[in-house]
């Protein structure tokens, strides 16, 4: 089999896509956003609980999509849980470089190792949007997705 393809669909990715971590709606999320890829009609919803320090206390996602987008969302959720907003932003920058086949100097060695399985996507430029959908949605959730609270909604 084609090497690029084998790298794209390696076992870790297929496993994440078949058994996505942190999957499902989250009640009482502090932040939420919906992402949509008009090219294929795929959707993803990202739920967050940001604590007082701006840390991702909890994260979940929901949606339908291709193996790449599901795996990417699942890995993202697993990786981001517990991080500060700033840390998450740095991770995302690194990830965006990585899937485009560029250097990602800001990544820690651990993160790089975890994310490296997504590097194969850089050989498939038409699929990069699939991989980045959840991440962009996460960013939207943080920046514009604050949920109405009892007070806020009054």
């Amino acid at each position, binding site marked *: *089999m084609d090497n690029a*393809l084998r790298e794209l*669909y390696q076992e870790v990715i297929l496993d994440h896509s078949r058994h996505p971590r942190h999957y499902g709606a989250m009640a009482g999320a502090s932040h939420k956003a919906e992402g949509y890829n008009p090219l*294929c*009609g795929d959707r993803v919803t990202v739920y967050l609980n940001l604590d007082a320090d701006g840390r991702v206390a909890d994260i979940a996602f929901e949606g339908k999509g291709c193996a790449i987008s599901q795996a990417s969302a699942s890995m993202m959720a697993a990786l981001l849980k517990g991080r500060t907003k700033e840390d998450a932003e740095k991770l995302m920058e690194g990830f965006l470089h990585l899937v485009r086949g560029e250097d990602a100097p800001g990544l820690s060695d651990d993160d790089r190792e975890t994310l490296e399985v997504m590097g194969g996507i850089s050989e*498939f430029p038409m699929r990069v949007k699939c991989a980045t959908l959840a991440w962009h949605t996460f960013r939207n959730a943080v920046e514009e997705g604050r949920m109405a609270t009892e007070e806020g909604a009054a």
Partner: protein
Amino acid sequence: MTAPVKIAMPFDAEAVRARFPILSRTVYGKKLVYLDSGASAQKPDVVLDAMRDFAQSEYANVHRGVHFLSAAATDRYEAARRTVQKFLNAAREDEIVFTKGGTEAINLVAYSHLMPTIQPGDEIVLSVMEHHSNIVPWHFLRERCGAVLHWVDVADDGSLDVESLDGAIGPKTKLVAITHMSNVLGTVTPLKEIIARAHAKGVPVLADGCQGAVHEIVDVQALDIDFYVLTGHKLYGPTGIGALYARRAHLKAMRPFNGGGEMIREVMKDRITYADPPARFEAGTPPIIEAAGLGAALDWLMGLDRAAVAAHEHDLLSFAREQVSQFNWLRVIGDAPGKGAILSFEADGMHAHDLATILDREGVAVRAGHHCAQVLMERFNVTSTTRASFALYNTRADVDALVAGLAKAREVLHG
């Protein structure tokens, strides 16, 4: 005395393939298997030659010029109009308006035929299997003029529910806008019957023939249709050109769409009058080189035995249909009787984009997504499908490659 029997030569797909330079290329070291002609067809050498030869020996702007090249270019442009007229069997050449594509042709009808007179509450009837190009212009009339869209459903096999047309067409219906052939399901609609039902209530009919004109023989007079739309790039012609057939009486009553050169009679500071159709609807420098290409494409197509072409395409479709039925994890969407050579499907636990990526690496080009038919996706409760569409240059070997690719994809994604 008996009528002479016309002996159809068996269709020689290999000879046809040889006319398409791109089909001999490889991708990722694999032979290209192009099954995306529904999105856009490849171009035969006759079309590429006609465009190049024209551009490098007889090119100039058309109309208004008295010099030799301008006359030659005008002749070529108007000859292409007559070729389209012949292709659709229109009664008059001035019933053919050149546009930049199928989408613009439909917009022209929306802006020039309906928009000037439509009233809030007026209705437009369309089917759930329309391409966005035959939906969005009517949404504009909804958003901007208060028109109401009336949707005709399809059955589970993708056939149009023709009976329900009678209920859908009411006293306020201003147009029935319907595809001739679905770009997702392959369904061919019974235009003659649809037109009869609509005309019985005095309602004009527009057919989106962007797919239909490629696979079916069209006779706008026999159909007695009001508007028929085609697009060049799916008809083995160039991009940048399409055509609207419209009945002369409609065209004469229609308001201009784009304004500019060619479409006027007199322009003054405070007053303006417009040219007669078709010029009225062809503002600016038209797609001249593209008209030469489209003319060559249609001449070439009409020179083939089109019944044999249709038989060949149907053979590919039924062969493919039969082959994929071996995969119990694959669900075909669209099985209407008499459907054209398009095969859309869903695969258990395999997303269309993953499938298409894996097929691509095997050299097999298919399309994955909503195919500009989101309303239809909703009808079948999917977000996307994988689509293989067949053209006259495809062969059973292409189907074999598709089937092998599908098996491979299953293996990659399901281990």
